[in-house]
Structure formats: C-alpha cells, structure tokens
C-alpha cells in the first residue's frame, strides 16, 4: 500500500508481535473472556496442527469447490446478461429496479427456504454462492458496457457490424476491466457466503467445522478455522489480481496504472 523499506518491514513486524503479545497477556490474565478471545499461543497450536489433518483439507475442498462453482456459473450468466443490459439504454432502464432489488437481497436469508427445497447438500451451497455473486458481476458488466464511448459505438453501428462481432470486439474488450473488478469482489463474497451458509445449516465445509468447534467449546480451534478462512480469502483475491494483470496487460487502463 505504501512504500516499505527493510526498516518499515521490521517496524510492521514489531507492531504485529506487540499486538499479539498484548492479546496473549489479556487472555492469560483473564482480562477478556477466554471464550471470546482465546490466547494466540493456543490458536497458533491449532493453526500448525490443522494442515496435517485430512478433515481440514476435506472442509477446505468442499468450501472452495462450492464457492468457485457458484462463481463460475455467476460469471457465465452474469457477464453476457450484464453486457446485454448495459449495451441498450431502454433495457438498462427497464431492468434497473429489478437488479437493484435483487442486489440488495441478503442471500443468507434464502438459506432456510433453500434447505427446505434442497436439503443441506453441496448443490444448495452452489445455488447460494451463485445467487450471491451473480449481481455484482452483472452490475459491473453493465457498467462496463455503458462505458463504451459514443464515437466507438456509433462507428460500429455505421459500419453495420453484426451484433456477434460488436459483442466480442467492442463491448467485451471495453467492459473487461470492469468485469475483472466485479469477479474479484464476487470471489471473496462467494467464499464469505458459502462459509456463512455452512455455519448456519451444518452443510459440510469450513463453516460447519467452525460451528462444531464452537459447540465443543474449543474456542482456539474456532479461531484457527477463522484464520484459515481469512487466508483463503486473501489467497483467492491475490490470485485473481495477478490473473487480472496478466490477462488485461493489453488494456489501456493497465498501462496507465504502471
């Protein structure tokens, strides 16, 4: 975020260690509730132990596969629909209210209905992840399509470029950076919603592990799972930013940024 020399790195590390030490002290002395903030040393033990357990990797696998499948479906549906909506002003105005309502819908509230309909299955998680992520992607794609300069779209129309080529050669390239941002936001959101739904519905995955550790009153284990959920989110968004830079290197916005 900011320039960081070696001295700054040391300082940052010192601050992080200082915060952990203070936390450890508070937890040891009983100044905070140990069931709310268990001491970092106990959390660290679980953080080290978890990757050696098959159960952990199974949970990571089912959470990731549900979140990513949902994200993929959302991209396949959301990008073309969003571009189609953004490419035409009347269609954009017609669908705006509908998209606004759907976008502001808290998807976790659908969980009880979906559990009634589909049970606590991986398929249900995929549906939740899709419904949660399709709107940001659709919205970003439509903003992207709307950002096509009038001169360009007029030229395409004057030359009577067929709709198919207008989509692949004008709309899609212009909207690409917007779509990439939408997908990056949606990816962390997919993970969050998947874990939240697992937590509430006891569907297999990281969320259920958290709920079970909590029921067993193993609070450091809860925090260790929360830690890995955070790491997973950071890794996913770092991976996507890298892919974005690689894939959009040709785009003017990427060149200006450098």
């Amino acid at each position, binding site marked *: 975020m900011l320039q960081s020399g070696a001295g700054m790195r040391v300082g*940052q590390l010192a601050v992080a260690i200082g915060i952990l030490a203070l936390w450890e002290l508070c937890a040891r002395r009983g100044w905070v509730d140990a069931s709310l903030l268990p001491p970092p040393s106990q959390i660290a033990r679980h953080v080290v132990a978890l990757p050696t357990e098959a159960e952990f990797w199974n949970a990571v696998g089912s959470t990731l596969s549900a979140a990513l499948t949902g994200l993929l479906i959302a991209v396949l549906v959301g990008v073309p629909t969003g571009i189609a909506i953004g490419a035409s002003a009347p269609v954009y105005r017609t669908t705006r209210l509908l998209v606004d309502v759907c976008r502001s819908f808290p998807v976790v509230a659908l969980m009880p209905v979906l559990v009634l309909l589909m049970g606590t299955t991986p398929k249900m998680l995929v549906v939740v992840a899709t419904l949660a992520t399709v709107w940001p992607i659709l919205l970003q794609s439509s903003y992207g399509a709307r950002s096509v300069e009038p001169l360009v779209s007029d030229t395409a129309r004057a030359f009577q470029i067929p709709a198919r080529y207008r989509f692949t050669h004008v709309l899609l390239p212009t909207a690409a950076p917007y779509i990439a941002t939408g997908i990056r936001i949606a990816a962390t959101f997919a993970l969050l919603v998947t874990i939240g739904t697992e937590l509430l519905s006891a569907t297999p995955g990281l969320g259920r592990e958290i709920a079970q550790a909590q029921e067993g009153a193993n609070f450091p284990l809860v925090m260790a799972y929360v830690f890995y959920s955070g790491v997973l989110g950071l890794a996913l968004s770092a991976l996507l930013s890298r892919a974005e830079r690689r894939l959009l290197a040709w785009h003017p916005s990427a060149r200006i940024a450098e």
Partner: protein
Amino acid sequence: MNRQTLHAAQALWLPVLLVALWWWGSAGSTSIYFPPLSKIVALTWEDLVRGPLPGFIAFSLGNLAAGLALAIVAGISLGTVLGWYPLALRLLDPVLQFFRAMPKVALVPLFIGALGIGALPKIYSIALGCVWPILLNTIDGVRGVEPGQLEMARAYRIPLALRLWRVILPAAAPQIVAGVRVALAIGVVVMVVSEIYGAQQGVGYYVLNASRAFDVAQTWGGTLLIGLIGYLLSTSFVIAEQWFLRWHYLRARVLGLNA
C-alpha cells in the same frame, strides 16, 4: 406523458409483470414447497398486523442501527487518526489488511457463545463487520484532503479541533459516506446471520422458526420481508446520502467534476 412518468413506467413494468406472473402462476399451487403467493402474503400480513413481526422488525433494526452507529464512531475516529499519521498507518497496515480479510460471519458463533443470545452480541458482531469499510474509506478520505487547503488552514492558525471539524472531515465526507453505504449492506447480512445462528426474536429468527415448523408459506414470507427491508434500507440510504452531501454534488456540478 412527460419524460419522468415514461421513465418510471419503463422501470416498473417488468417487476410488476414478474410479480403478477408469480401471483397467477402459483394461484392454484398444491406443491408444499411453492405455496400460492396470495397465501404467503396473507399469512405474512397476518403476522405483521396481529403477530410478532413488528416487534421482531424493531429488534432487528435496533441492533443494526446500534451496531452501525458503533462502527461509524469507531471507524471515523480511528480512521482520522491513522489517515493523519502516515507512520502509524504504515506500521499497522498488514494487521489491518488481515483483519479486513477475515470472514466476519465466522466470528458470530464466538460472540453469541461468549455473550449469550441477547441483543448485545448481535450488536458487536454487526459493528465488527461494518467497521472495516468505514475505517479504510475514512483513512483514504483524510489522506486525500488537498494539501493546499491544509496549508491554508495552518497559515491562518485555525485550531486543530476546528480544522478537523471544518476542513478535514467535510473533505473526507463523500468517501466516508461511501464506506458507510458498503457497511450497511454488510450489516444487514451479519444481522440475519446472527439471528439465524441464535436468537429468540428478530426477522432472521422468524424465518428460521417458520422453516423448522415446516410453515413453508411463512418461511417464504419472512424471506421476502427481509429482501424488502434490505432494499428499502439501501434506497433510503442513497436518498439520505444525496441530501447529506448536497453541497458536494452541487460543487461537483458547478466545477464540472464527476460526482
């Protein structure tokens, strides 16, 4: 027909058509899982007028308001300090980035486990989820104040408190408000999660309770109600934002900037 009515008609016909299709399409439905929309609306209305729903809605919205208020106070004050002292920000940056990435809904069980199923743990969970976008946007907003304005304020020896209140915070306000808008959406999600996880009242509890009792129509009704609340909250926030920042939009229009 003037332009405004035309636009309103354009925006409304599709949602109205979809609701009408659902209404007529489900009218004779005997499926357990897809009860007629008329029945869903009737039962939910019943609970709204005579049932527990008004109290539940007040409980949920009260928690949301308290949690968001806590997050706003904490986020703006900490964000102003960190935006003001670049060194402190740089030292804390990795810690902040990590906490921001943690899935806040995963912490709901810890809060409810430690503090019980009352209102307080829900307020804390909401505040913890909401504080990050406000904090980060405040930092960016404070750092983005034009240096010229700050130097001018310093040259006239305007006291720090006044400088903060009249120069820095107004300049950062658009960014802070944008952060609060994101936080509101997160807050609604955390509110619902915390009520489904463990509660004895609230709209999330209403939905969960209905689904446990296999009252499918009420489950649908509560879900639609939460969607409506979410939409109304985000729409009224946008309206409030336009009013609160009217000077900003006005200035942007006069100067020909992008608001």
